[in-house]
């Protein structure tokens, strides 16, 4: 993983509000603020992990970046070949052509593949659709890609149902990567797979990253997997980023109370290891009706008066470590401890 020092993606103040409609007239009665002012950047060759509670807006963020959704607000800027491409400024045709640079890999290897298409058709389709290749060239490129993800050419005429979950996920990966995208949003790419297949697919994604010069936004709820693949990790809570830092720094030295809870909840594979787990009381805030002040305050063990009224800004606490908490520089929080239980 050679992370280069050039920026590939810049996201500024991204917002995605879904209207809540009621009644026959479909009157809009409010908005689900699924993503509410997210700013982040990813360097070429880097993997940014994105974690957070279910429903906090991770998938929506990914979908906005690959432009499945047209965001309500904010800018998405790609830096490709010394050029700056602001997705907001592209005409429809230009956007269509630009899409091949950004792809998404989905969680569910079962429903994301059309059961009536063969592997050749599935992996070749994006090339045809974008007029990138056809005929023999298409077959060659598909064969090359299928090999790269660890499947065989004999698999090309087969249909998805005759593959295992891990193999189907490989087909999904081949389909996303065959167009040689620059950025890949991996949305829970291994969550549906069992342990041993999961590690194969994680290794594959890492190998392909260096072979194909890919940049990843990696969404997952398994912290140990996220740490394995990510250079940096961003923690999201109800539509907002609450902490961003280098992965090891974030895990060992979390500065946001929510990150601390998240790390303590990771189930550890040591039966004797009695974890001091911090429990998280209450429900996550409703993105249609977020609390004032810090979004995390109703559940935060360190809450003070100011948290109920003032929104903490995401600020840089130490180089590269950004936190949105009023007390980030005072709290002594507990992270993971790599020195503790020795594995056998």
């Amino acid at each position, binding site marked *: 993983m050679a992370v280069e020092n050039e920026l590939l993606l810049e996201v500024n103040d991204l917002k995605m509000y879904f209207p809540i409609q009621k009644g026959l007239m479909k009157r809009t009665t409010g908005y689900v603020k699924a993503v509410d002012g997210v700013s982040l950047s990813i360097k070429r060759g880097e993997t940014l992990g994105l974690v957070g509670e279910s429903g906090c807006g991770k998938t929506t963020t990914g979908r906005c970046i690959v432009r499945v959704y047209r965001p309500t607000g904010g800018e998405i800027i790609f830096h490709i070949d010394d050029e700056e491409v602001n997705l907001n400024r592209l005409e429809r045709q230009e956007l269509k052509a630009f899409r091949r640079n950004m792809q998404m890999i989905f969680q569910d290897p079962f429903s994301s593949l059309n059961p009536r298409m063969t592997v050749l058709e599935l992996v070749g389709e994006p090339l045809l659709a974008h007029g990138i290749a056809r005929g023999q060239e298409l077959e060659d490129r598909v064969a090359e890609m299928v090999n790269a993800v660890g499947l065989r050419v004999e698999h090309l005429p087969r249909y998805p149902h005759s593959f295992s979950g891990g193999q189907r996920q490989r087909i999904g990966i081949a389909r996303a990567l065959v167009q040689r995208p620059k950025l890949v949003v991996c949305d829970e790419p291994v969550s549906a797979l069992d342990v041993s297949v999961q590690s194969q697919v994680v290794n594959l994604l890492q190998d392909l990253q260096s072979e194909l010069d890919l940049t990843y936004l990696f969404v997952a709820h398994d912290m140990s997997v996220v740490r394995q693949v990510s250079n940096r990790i961003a923690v999201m809570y109800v539509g907002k980023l609450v902490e961003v830092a280098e992965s090891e720094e974030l895990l060992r030295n979390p500065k946001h109370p929510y990150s601390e809870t998240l790390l303590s909840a990771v*189930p550890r594979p040591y039966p004797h290891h009695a974890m001091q787990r911090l429990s998280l009381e209450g429900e996550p805030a409703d993105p249609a009706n977020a609390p004032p002040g810090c979004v995390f305050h109703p559940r935060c063990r360190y809450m003070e008066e100011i948290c109920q009224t003032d929104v903490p800004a995401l600020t840089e606490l130490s180089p590269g470590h950004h936190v949105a908490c009023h007390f980030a520089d005072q709290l002594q929080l507990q992270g993971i401890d*790599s020195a503790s239980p020795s594995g056998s």
Partner: protein
Amino acid sequence: MAHDTLLEIRDLMTHFHLQEGIVRAVDGVSFEIRRGRTLGIIGESGCGKSVTANSILRLVPSPPGNIVNGRILLHRGDDSSDQEPVDLARLDPRGAEIRSIRGAEISMVFQEPMTSFGPMHTIGNQIMESILLHQSDVAASDARELAIENLRRVGIPRAEQIVDAYPHQLSGGMRQRAMIAMALSCSPRLLIADEPTTALDVTIQAQILELLTALQEEFGMAVMFITHNLGVIAEVADEVAVMYLGRIVEQSDVNELFDNPQHPYTQGLLNSIPHIDEEKLPRLRAIEGVVPDPYEIPRGCAFSDRCPSFMPGTCDRAMPGLDETGPGHRVRCFLFSEFEDELTEVADGR
């Protein structure tokens, strides 16, 4: 204690007779679940975990599925009584007896949350229905209160409102918890939980695991817990059975399994997970290869085509038995059992 064992499974075989051939989804599985204890079941996708669970409650679709062999004994009596156990494998899957057991004495949380709740009725109505069906002493007027109480227990906020919600109105995590509430509503002796927390994020998962532990201490409920997540197993299980292609390949107390895994497959599984508390590895150590197609199971040991310790001439000639290697620790592997014994068994037509 005479009847410490609640459920005793002996040589269970559940096969699917399909056009392409026979899938031996469960092929000679034996284990016991003790009162108040948790048996964890792990193993690769397709190895037969759900089919084992469904066989207990007689929910295997037939055709194509059939329990072709074995006994599933439910020991109802407590320590002193000498009540005969019921063999669930012998019951009519549509009969009154198994229906009175399902959801009452043994209840199940399904892998797929939508299978438990019908879409047309509110969560509350479905929980109330289950309570009224199995608990004759509960008055209809009290059932609603009980349903709310159950929802509250699994950490659902605003339970008195959520009770009137339809399944599609809940987030995945809440639906999963509502399902667990329904499964627990009749205080079962045994809860079968099939990947109950896979769809949940870690904070809610932690909450559910704590709830199950608390209920176990309070009511002595036994749990059969199926999951891919070894961290979860380490936390909840007292004993663990590791399955591979329809058979148990290793079984032991949870501490022993994590400290001293013996079967090459178990070792591979434990090796392949990233440990958040340790130094990061450059690459994960994966088990090579894929689970064989159910119609092309290798000769001999089912794991032989992926095994790093494969011994030609032995592992590919006979199926190792599940032999005891230490107190309560059993392993199905020729590194630990005598080849000659198994060869004679094969010759005997097994």
